């Protein structure tokens, strides 16, 4: 029993309702969702007019919303607020329980607030989504392996294309900020947990609630629109569209919560001495990404809410005949859609930027330029959205200004390249998988970025918009740079997150299969796009046959490579060699904590005295952090008092290497 509990007074600790609260887990969440969803369905049927042609949409949306609320009730998301409102706030024991203390594997299936648990949960969710999206990609490329395949009918194919897209977009939005932004970031800034641990769990479980909603779309007639869900086609769509739009609404809430949490954590909970100059670049990139997501995701959400109004009560927001405008949807969507690609890209590239100094054994080159590059990209990205609408006819006079802003983004993007190649310059290149990911990013992102310049040119876009060229361009950036960066980050931080090393040999096999397969697929796709193949077509002209065949073969290679990666991760997690606490010789704070990481990360909160890039500076370098002479107070009441004895160890030089 810790001292803290005795301090509460004479009466012994009583578990107020701890019994049922502590029994809530994924199972009760699903039960809650199903029960409330069924109730919602029943009442929706009862109170809606069954002759209304829109009744199936009304019932579907109500049912899905009830599922989500029931799921959140079942996982215990409302416990904290309810307990606080009824005056029986959670006790320290409750908070320790919620943080997963001494619970083993079961804490991963509960509303656990420990950021390390949430990070692992996000990692598994990302892998699940990538698996679903990847399977759909295999379907797509199988259909397109010959010009007039009868493998899939047109509505099935269109649905698969749309679902593949939205599943992958959600997966790539969370793939770096989810696992690593949650697990690594608080440790990297020298904090014990996030600023809002309960919101941390909330953001994950909202995502978990949204995933079945999204997948249900496939069983309710699918979506005919592609992942962008353009109205008015989305208005015409079967009830699967309701699954899509409800999943987006839930996901937008999840992102907003996570974004507020990460931003507050970084702004207020950095270790003492961690000035902005000493803050690792990964922190900048993550904050930039979630900070960008905070205004962007609500635009997507509002586009879907208006669509829901159109679909359920014939709202006419997007119906020109009723006074609305189809261009309204496009503007709302792309106000989200363009910042969103940087939400995806920036954390992945920044994670690579964080790990490159470690494997080149050199400081990060031009740190200030890196920060300016990130700020420039994020700032400009909110001003370029209508380059997706050059051919829409919405505002032809604005095509020129949007071309200007879009081409301007190439300058801060170029700065990021300078930082990476400057870090590599004259380094001691240790070719681990994370470092190879950096090189793959350098190849893929150049191609992706240059082809983006083509698309930013208005007349060229008149030819290329809506063709497979666009598809190849965004796969090169989001997958070639984005997913590659996430895989590099995984191999880099896996030893810290799980205490085991991933196999380098297996990693090599998977890396080369995925990268070579990837380039084969999408270089072939550039070719057919230039030759005139439109996007999202289930059959195509014979003249595109060779390019598509080549692309499909490459896709199968990616699929096999990703399965090898899956095995690598599973076998590494279960039986990989035990990792030392700092296998790569990194200097950032996460490498300073031992494996397994204590519940509250640090016995004693460190004091930062310099940045984390002091490679090559030998004895002159002060190192990134030291242990203070007297331990600092706990970071935040929310995180709870550290469950350890206070330490009186005198000042020590702590080199993080």
């Amino acid at each position, binding site marked *: 029993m810790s001292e803290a509990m005795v301090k509460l007074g004479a009466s012994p600790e009583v578990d107020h309702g701890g019994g049922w609260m502590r029994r809530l887990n994924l199972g009760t969440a699903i039960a809650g969702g199903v029960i409330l969803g069924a109730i919602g369905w029943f009442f929706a049927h009862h109170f809606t007019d069954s002759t209304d042609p829109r009744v199936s949409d009304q019932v579907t949306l109500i049912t899905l919303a009830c599922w989500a609320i029931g799921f959140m009730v079942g996982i215990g998301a409302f416990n904290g607020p309810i307990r606080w409102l009824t005056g029986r706030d959670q006790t320290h024991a409750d908070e320790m329980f919620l943080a997963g203390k001494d619970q083993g594997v079961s804490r991963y299936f509960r509303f656990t607030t420990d950021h390390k648990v949430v990070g692992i949960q996000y990692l598994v969710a990302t892998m699940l989504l990538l698996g679903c999206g990847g399977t759909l990609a295999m379907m797509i490329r199988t259909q397109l392996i010959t010009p007039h395949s009868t493998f899939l009918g047109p509505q099935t194919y269109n649905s698969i294309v749309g679902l593949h897209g939205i599943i992958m977009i959600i997966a790539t939005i969370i793939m770096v900020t989810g696992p690593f932004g949650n697990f690594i970031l608080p440790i990297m800034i020298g904090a014990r947990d996030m600023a809002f641990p309960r919101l941390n769990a909330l953001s994950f479980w909202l995502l978990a609630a949204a995933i079945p909603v999204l997948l249900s779309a496939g069983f309710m007639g699918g979506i005919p629109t592609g992942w962008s869900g353009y109205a008015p086609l989305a208005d015409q769509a079967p009830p699967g569209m309701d699954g899509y739009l409800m999943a987006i609404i839930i996901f937008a809430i999840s992102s907003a919560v996570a974004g507020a949490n990460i931003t507050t954590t970084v702004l207020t909970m950095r270790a003492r001495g961690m000035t902005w100059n000493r803050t690792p670049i990964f922190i900048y990139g993550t904050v930039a990404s979630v900070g960008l997501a905070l205004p962007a995701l609500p635009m997507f959400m509002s586009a879907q809410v208006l669509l829901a109004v159109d679909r359920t009560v014939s709202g006419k927001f997007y119906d020109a005949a009723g006074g609305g405008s189809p261009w309204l949807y496009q503007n709302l969507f792309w106000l989200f859609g363009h910042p969103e690609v940087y939400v995806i890209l920036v954390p992945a590239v920044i994670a690579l930027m964080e790990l490159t100094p470690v494997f080149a054994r050199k400081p990060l*080159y031009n740190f200030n330029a890196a920060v300016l590059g990130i700020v420039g990209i994020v700032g400009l990205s909110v001003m370029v959205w209508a380059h997706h609408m050059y051919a829409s006819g919405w505002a032809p006079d604005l095509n020129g200004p949007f071309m200007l802003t879009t081409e301007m983004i190439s300058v801060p993007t170029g700065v990021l390249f300078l930082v990476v190649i400057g870090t590599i310059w004259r380094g001691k290149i240790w*070719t681990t998988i994370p470092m190879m990911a950096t090189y793959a990013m*350098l190849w893929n992102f150049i191609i992706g970025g240059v082809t983006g310049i083509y698309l930013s040119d208005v007349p060229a876009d008149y030819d290329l918009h809506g063709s497979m060229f666009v598809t190849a361009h965004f796969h090169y950036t989001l997958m070639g740079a984005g997913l590659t960066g996430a895989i590099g980050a995984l191999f880099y931080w896996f030893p810290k997150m799980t205490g085991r090393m991933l196999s380098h040999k297996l990693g090599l096999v998977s890396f080369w299969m995925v990268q070579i397969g990837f380039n084969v697929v999408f270089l072939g796709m550039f070719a057919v796009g230039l030759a005139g193949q439109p996007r999202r077509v289930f059959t195509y002209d014979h003249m595109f046959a060779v390019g598509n065949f080549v692309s499909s073969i490459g896709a199968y290679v990616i699929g096999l490579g990703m399965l090898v990666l899956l095995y690598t991760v599973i076998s590494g997690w279960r039986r990989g060699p035990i990792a030392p606490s700092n296998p790569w010789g990194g200097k950032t704070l996460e490498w300073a904590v031992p494996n397994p990481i204590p519940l509250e990360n640090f016995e004693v909160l460190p004091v930062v005295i310099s940045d984390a890039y002091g490679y090559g500076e030998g004895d002159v370098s002060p190192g990134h952090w030291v242990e203070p002479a007297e331990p600092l107070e706990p970071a935040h009441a929310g995180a709870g008092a550290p469950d350890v004895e206070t330490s009186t160890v005198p000042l020590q030089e702590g080199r993080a290497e």
Partner: protein
Amino acid sequence: MTITTSMDDASNRARRFVRRRDVRQVFLLWLALTVVLVVFGATVPARLMGAGASPSMHAIKNTMTLFSIAAAPVAAVVWAIALYSLIAWRHRGNTQPESDGPPLRTNKPAAVLWILLSSVLCVFLLIWGLAEMGSVDAAGATSDAMVVDVTGQQWVWTFSYPQEGNIESDQLYLPVDKPVVFHVTSKDVIHSFWVVQLGIKVDANPGETTTTSVVPDRIGVYDVRCAELCGLLHADMETNAHVVSADDFNKWVADNGGQSS
């Protein structure tokens, strides 16, 4: 005693820099990659896009070629350094290197030069793009242009010629070398009217009319495709654009019950 100004200092540093072995080798690598990429950029995109049939499409192809050539040295510098680093600076062995690399943190001149060059390139691409956009958007938009009304309906394109007696057709016929303006609309969802070899594309929106224009300059049969997912048979929403001589066009009009203007 030699007195050196800071300018001499900087230029001395620069001279020492370019005489270094690794810098020279990277430069040679960069040169080789640039040549390869320029050859690629000058030939492949234009070849893949096929022969254009209007000045607009020729301009687009020129842009793609020019941008590819301009991108070549940029891509080459990144790839040359990346490649060279794997050849010359690679740490052999699978454990952490015993010592670190040199502590190079900041190089303001390099950053400034890099940002300056990329900004100049950006401005150049922009000016080119604006000029080209002006000429392409104005092509065919003259007062004597023929008007064709394009209607997209799920999942068929139909064309109507108001100046030729309102004849209607599912095939697009155009006389060569005559400017033509398309008024494009949709009866239901958003489609996109794309005549591939003429290099024009504009969305067909319900309740709105959008416009594009072009001057076809080569006789032939070209592809009209829908470029915006519009539902079930989006892939089949294609037809042909026939650019024919003026005489053949008049004959076609007459055959369809119209009168040539």
